[in-house]
């Protein structure tokens, strides 16, 4: 996936959030998941632009530390965020944990308020989308 595709996917996920909200159904969990995946694509866009030779299908050379293959998938990517976008780490970590616990059922969805969702969208728009 090239950088342009990551930008499009990030924007598409943001539009998906708007669609879910417009439906006025209880899709808070999917809104949270879409917000995180939108953030992922924006940071991957940034990596493509700023990290020489970055290839998201072959992250390993940029992340290898300690035993080979130690950092994989999301943990892998989070490490890149820590190294290259340290000011975004806290928000990235929050979006990641929210998406994960929404998906796996630990997050009490009844306690997720419209303000919480608005805050997530604000972070997405003002911090992650600005990477593109």
């Amino acid at each position, binding site marked *: 996936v090239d950088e342009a595709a990551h930008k499009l996917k990030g924007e598409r996920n943001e539009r998906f959030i708007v669609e879910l909200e417009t439906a006025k159904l209880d899709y808070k969990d999917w809104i949270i998941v879409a917000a995180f995946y939108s953030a992922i694509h924006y940071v991957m866009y940034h990596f493509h632009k700023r990290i020489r030779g970055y290839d998201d299908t072959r992250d390993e050379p940029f992340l290898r530390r300690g035993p080979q293959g130690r950092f994989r998938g999301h*943990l892998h990517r989070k490490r890149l965020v820590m190294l290259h976008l340290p000011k975004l780490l806290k928000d990235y970590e929050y979006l990641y*944990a929210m998406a994960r*616990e929404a998906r796996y059922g630990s997050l*009490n969805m009844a*306690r997720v308020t419209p303000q919480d969702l608005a805050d997530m969208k604000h972070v997405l728009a003002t911090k992650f989308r600005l990477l593109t």
Partner: protein
Amino acid sequence: MTPETEWMRLYRDVPGENISRSFFSVLLSARFRGNLGHVAQMPEPWRELLTCLKELDQVIEVHLFPADQDEDVDHVWVVVPEVTPQTIRQVTDIISEVELEFEETFDIRVVDDPRNVPAGAHTFLSKV
């Protein structure tokens, strides 16, 4: 007293099986019970992680993985009474700070039921 000093004192004061029921006490998993120096011997990032999480009132338990003492800790399961956006934000903010300070990354789970935590935790801490 700094948090770390307090932490170490609490750790040393745990009297084996007869664990203090003060505001904060430390339980060791069966795997490490009796090895009270374990946290003291931990590399600094993990010790710092435990020290910082201890300060959060909502945190009931912290589990570090993998269980093998020779491997780096890279998974952290935090048990809280209720998983809300606020508790997730508090936990992730603290862990992010430790990650940035030590250039370590941890895979984080925040759960409300300790039964969801996989078996074989490296360390098990509990507020009672």
